[in-house]
Every structure is written in structure tokens, then in C-alpha cells.
């Protein structure tokens, strides 16, 4: 019990010395460090690419491409935030770009599934390595 109380007290003390959530938010706004986001988006991008290359099912391939798109979106947002802090004049472009990418991704999804449906109705399969009528 005693240790628990001590712990809670020290935690509260530290919390008191710690800047408040709002200050941290404002301070984050000022010197944001985008590198962590970059690493994350790179990882997502690699995963997406791996998915496209390896997976057999077309729908999974399609999802991994969407993954790659989202990685790009993450990048845009991260850089937008960074350039906002630098006082770049057009920092908001990053956000606008993300919106458009999402719109385009949606269009792609609709269209892709339509094509997949037509293919499935015709060939009874959605495995990427079975659709190899066109070769040589």
C-alpha cells in the first residue's frame, strides 16, 4: 500500500512539474519531429509493396495497394505538419492532397471491384496466378 501511495505521489509530483497536456500540445505544434512518422509510413509502404508482390488473392493485392496509398497520405500529413511549423506559406497543401488521394482511392476501389466481379463471373477465380491467358 505504502509503496503504491508513494508511487502515486511521485507520479502526481512529476505530473505537476510536467507541462500540461495543452502546453505540450502547443509546444508540439512548435517543433514537431516528423522523422518518427516518416519511419512509420516507410514501414507501411514496404508492407503494402510486399503484399502486392506476394499475396495470391487479387482482393488482398488490391488492399495492399490501398495500404501504399495510405502510407503516402501519412507522409503528406507529417510533412504538412512540419512545414506548418516552419511557417511555409502553402503548408496546407499537404492536407488538401490527402483528401484528394482518399477520393481517388475510393474511385479506384469501386472500379477495381467492378472489374474483379466481371473477371470472377467469367473465370470463376480471383487468384492472381491463375489469370495467365495472355502470355508470350
Amino acid at each position: 500500500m505504502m509503496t503504491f501511495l508513494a508511487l502515486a505521489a511521485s507520479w502526481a509530483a512529476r505530473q505537476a512539474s510536467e507541462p500540461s497536456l495543452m502546453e505540450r500540445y502547443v509546444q508540439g505544434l512548435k517543433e514537431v519531429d516528423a522523422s518518427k512518422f516518416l519511419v512509420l509510413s516507410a514501414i507501411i509502404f514496404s508492407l503494402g509493396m510486399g503484399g502486392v508482390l506476394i499475396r495470391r488473392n487479387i482482393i488482398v493485392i488490391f488492399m495492399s495497394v490501398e495500404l501504399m496509398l495510405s502510407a503516402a497520405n501519412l507522409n503528406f500529413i507529417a510533412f504538412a505538419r512540419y512545414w506548418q511549423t516552419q511557417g511555409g506559406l502553402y503548408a496546407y497543401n499537404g492536407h488538401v492532397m490527402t483528401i484528394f488521394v482518399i477520393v481517388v482511392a475510393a474511385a479506384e476501389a469501386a472500379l477495381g471491384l467492378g472489374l474483379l466481379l466481371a473477371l470472377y463471373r467469367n473465370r470463376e477465380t480471383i487468384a492472381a496466378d491463375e489469370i495467365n491467358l495472355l502470355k508470350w
Partner: protein
Amino acid sequence: MYLVALVPFFPLLGFIVNGLFAKRLGFSEKVIGAIACAMVAASFVCSAAAVYEFSRHARDNKVQAAAKQREAELQARILGQGVAYDAKTDTKREAPEHKSDDHKEGAHEVVATPYVVTLFEWMPGGTLRLTLGASAGQTAEFSVKWAYQLDQLSGLYILFVTFVAFFIHLFAIGYMHGDPSFHRFFAYLNLFMFMMLNLVLGANFLMTFVGWEGVGLASYLLIGYYLKKPEAGTAAKKAFVMNRVGDFGLMLAMMATFAVFGTLDYADVMAMAKALPQEPFGLAALSFTTGTLTVIALLIFLGAAGKSAQIPLYTWLPDAMAGPTPVSALIHAATMVTAGVYLVARCNPLFQRAPTAMLTVAVIGIATAFVAATIGITQTDIKKALAYSTVSQLGYMFVGCGVGAFVAGVFHVVTHAFFKAQLFLGSGSVIHGGSPSGHQQEMTYYGNFRKYMPITFATMMLSLFAICGIIPFAGFFSKDEILAKTLHTPVFSHEVGLALYALGFLTAGVTAFYMTRLMCLTFFGKERFLEGPDFQEGHSEDHGDGHHAPASKDFHPHESPLVMTLPLMVLGAFAVVAGFAGVSEELTGGAFPNYVHHWLAPVMDATLYPEKPVAGVNWTEWLLAGASVVWALVMMGLAYFLYVIRPELPEKLAQTLRPLYTLSYRKWFWDEFIDVYLVGAFKKLSLGAWGVDFVVDSIVNLFAWLARASSVIFRTVQTGLMQNYALVMALGIFLFIAGMGYPLFKELFMPTDRPSPPPTPQTSRAAQP
């Protein structure tokens, strides 16, 4: 003086008329024959007139002075002294009087005064640069004129050529009677005359070359006249190709002459040649730098050997007998084959300055004489025997030229033309009358024809004595002079002269032997003409015109009509008379002038080997002449004994001297050597050569196959699997990054030049922006 240009024109006219219009206008044989003979006669008359006019022109001293002046300038130019001389416009700038002291005055001032008629500029060729000899570096103009040159040598030639040709044409009318393409034969004969006259009258090497190849063409057409005889075609081709080998040499000689003298005109070249020094003897002279003239002379001799059938290139002449007999008489006895001697005589200044060449000419001449004579012994075909005798006599002429006695060589040409043409025509009438088919040439089926052909027999006996060199006949004077000059030749050492004389003496004997053998087999001895193939069953005529029924047994040879015997008689007479034109002054001690010698003196260069004045009758000459006559009579007697009195003896002799017999019968294996080794090997080589073509082709097709193979690879790489495509894309991206990134990576992380703290290793994509 323009008659000279007319001399070759008439035969050309005859060729055109007979060749193109005779068949179309349906001329009869008589008309065609008349036109042909008329044309030759006309050209004979023109040449006689031209020669007469020329002889007057030559003696005129104004002309001689001008000629000497021009000769002096040319010699100065060739030696490169400062004579400003503009060859083209003939204007002579100031010419220092160039008196060369070493130029000894001959017996009387002898200067070549050729009369040149230029019709038009035949072949301009742009500027050229002299590269050999003394005047290398000068520029000259390649301009060959279509010009005729009349001087003593060509005058003599056109006279006897047209004369002999006229009678041969006359004979041919009879011999070719009944031949389907009669007009074609006479057209070709006239074409030959045109070409021969061009050869002889040509004012420069190239005009002679036109005649040279022209007569080659005419002989090709005439040898191959009997179109249906397959061996005629082969013989014609063989003759032409072998002549071309000779022409190859002559062509190179012409190019060399241009390189040394800058022009091909005989007058200029010979004048300039006289100024050049004599070249060393032996192998040193065999390069263009040291022995220019020697090499030119040798090349000219190669051309002459090809045309006049000397040792390496004589096998075509016996095969050429496949043509009709008048052709053999005209072309392969009297005129064409002597063209070689004409050219050597024409270029005597060159030859005299090239002792090595002179030796070659002499040695090859004597060798040909001996070899041909030995082969002549075992020939059974009458025309082939005569052909080998021609080759042997030509050998003699070249020996004459070789030892410096050009005049003797030329004189022998003239006399030989008469008696050899007569012999050939005689053999023609023998063939014509000797067998029912009129084409039997084998002497084994002749015998005792003197009973049936008295005129032919008589006239041929005259020629026999002439060729054997019996005293009053033409042969004696010309052949004996050659032998005499060989013995005392100033060109070589005494031993060489003696050796040549000995071999010449021996050959004369052998000639006497085989000529008498020929006469005996044909006119004396047992009548064998009934055993001939004409009388056997199943004999098919080699002219391919159908299968002959065997002739009736009571056939006997008949004499030829007058049109054939007249030429025989005329030529026979000349065979007797012609000798007296050139009686050597050694024999007569100057009492009886040697017309031929004095006539040809201006053409022959006497600067190096001046003649010794004749003291008086030279008894040693008479001794030698007598010896040769006796030797000839002995051999004739031997031949008569063997072939008439004891006809079975030759057979036994042949058995005993088996190796010698086969050597002579197989023509010293020279024919086979050429056919099997040279031509045969060449054909095999060319088949092989085609292989190289195949190899080059396959390389080209290899590239095509390579393209096709790689195309299949690239095409089948499309497996159709989408993931493969994506994989390739990913690979592409990686290569991009590696390709571009590496240098950057090197610069950033392995900085060689800038010292900077080693940054912490980070994945490329995690760099802090």
C-alpha cells in the same frame, strides 16, 4: 602519203560487207570470195605504193635532219637535262646543240625517219606522273592517238603479209567450197587482216595492242569455225586464254613504258631509249629500280612468247589446227605468230640495252626450236607436224633476235612465211583430195600421192628444200645467216654463242629429218589411203553432220582445182627466189648487196653493237654453210631410207628408243602438265573459293539467327503472371536507387575528402528532413 591509212581500211570494209550483208543479200560463193580477195589485193597495192613513196621520203635529207634534231631533244629530256621542250604543242624552245662525242659515226648517217599519220585522239586519260627511270617526277599527258606509222620495218611486214594473205584467200575459195556459212569464214579472214595490219602499222604500243588482241579474237573465231566440233571450241578458248597470258605481260610493259617515257609512241620511245645506258647483266637487273629496261623487255618478250607460241605458252598452236587449213596457213604459220618477232624487232633499242633479256630470248628461242623439232618427229597428223615445225622455226627467229641479229630474224620471218604458207596450203590440198570425206589429216592413211597430185607434190618439194636450208633456196640464206650471227654474236661471250650455234645446227638437222619424213609418208611409199576410216563401217563424221555410208573401194586421190594449185605454185616460186633478197655480205664479200639488211638498217639501233665493215669473202662462212647443207642432206637421206625403203624400221626403232619416243610422242608431257596441274588445280581452287563465300554468308545469317533467338527469349519472358511483372518493376526500382544512389551514398557516408564526424548508420529512408 595518206595511203597508209587506207591499207587496213580495205579488209575492214570486206569484213563489214561479207559479215553483215552477204547472207542477207544472198551473195553466191564466188561473189563473197571475190570481194574478200579484192580487198586484200587492194590493200597490197596501197601498201606497195605507200612503201615506194616512203622510201623516197626517207632518203630526203631535210627529213633526216629534222628527225635527228627531234631525236636529240627527246634524249635530252629523258636524261633530265635542261631542254625546255613542250611535248604537246611541238614548239621547240632554244635547244643547245647536244653533240654527244661517244656517238660514233656509223658507216653512213643512219637515222630512223618514221612517217606517222594521226587520224584522231583515241584515248585521252588525264595527266600522269612519271615514276620510274631517269626522269621520274615529271608530269606528262596520257593521250593515245589512233595513228599509223610507216617505216622500213612495218613497210616490209605489210608487203609480205598482204601478199601471202592474197594467195591464201584465193586458196580458201577452193578449199571451203560447199561450206554452209561460207560468208562467215571470209568475213573473219578479212577481220583478221584488218587486225594484223593494225598491229603492224600501229604507231604506238597501244595500237599494236589493239591489233594484238584483235588477231587473238580473229584466231578464236576461226579456230572455233567448225561450230559443231566440240574440240574446236575448246581449242579456240585455250588459244585465246593463253594469248591473254601473253597480253598480260604486254599490258604491264605498256604501263611501265608510260612510267619511264611518258608516252607510248614508238618514234619517241625508241629515240629516248637510245640515250639510256646499257643495264647490268645477270639477276641484279631484275628489279624496276636498277633494270627498268630489262623488265620492260622481258614483259614484252612474255607477250611475244604468248602470241608466237614459245616454250611456256606454245601448246595452243598444235590444238589450233582444229580450224580449217587456210586459217592454219594464214594465221598460224605466216602472219599472226610472227607478230611476236615484229614487236621484239620494233623494240630492239630496248632489248639491246637489256642483255639479260636478250639472253632469255635467245635461250628460250633455241629451246623451243629443239623441243618442237623433236616432237615433230613422232606426229602422225600432217597439220600438227607442220604446226610443230612452225613453232621450231619461230624459235629460230627469236634466237636471231636474241643474239642481236634482228635483221636476220625478220628476214627469216619473211622467207618462212612463204615456204611455210606453201607447205600448209599443200597439206590443205592433200587433205582436200586425199580422202572421200575431204577431212582426213592422218598421214598413216596417205601414201604415194605423188602419182595423183603432181603439182602439189612438186611445189611442196620446193618448200621442203627451202625449209631444210638447201643452198639455192630461201631457207638456206635466212636460217644460215641466223646460225652465222649466233656463232659470232657480239652480245654474249664466245662460249654462249658456240653452244647456241651447236644446238641450232642440231635442230636444223632434226628439222630436215621430220620434214622429209612428212613428205615421204605422204607422197612416197605404199598406198595406204584405202584403209582409212572413211571406208570402215559405222564411221561417223566428226563434223556431226550425219552418219556416212562407207565410200566405195575404187576411190583414188585427186589433184585440187587450179584455184588451189595456183597459190601453191606462186608461193613455191617465192620459196625459191625470196632468199636472194637478203644474201649475207659475208658470203659474197660485198659484191651482191644485202637488200634486206640495208633496207632495215635505219630501224635497227647500232649505237651499242656497230657492224664491222665487210673485208672480203669470208671463207669460214662458206665452210659453215657447206657443213650445214651437207648435214641437212644426210638427215633427208636417212628419213627417205627409213620411211620409203624400209617402212618397218621406224616401228622397231621406236621400240628400242622407248623412253625417247614416248617423251617426244607425249609432247614432253607439257600439255598434260598445264591441263592437269594449272587449269585443273585452278578449277578445284575456285570450287574451294566458293566455300569462303559460304562462310561469309553464314556469318551474316548468324546475326539474323541471333536476333531471332533473342527475340524468342524476350517474348517468352512475358509469363502472363501479374506478380512476375510487379516483381520486375520492383527490381527496376531497386536498380534505379542503387544506380543513382550509390555515388551519393559514397559521397555522404564514405567521404574521402571532407573530414566530418562519422554519422550514425541509418536506413536510407529514415533521414531527418
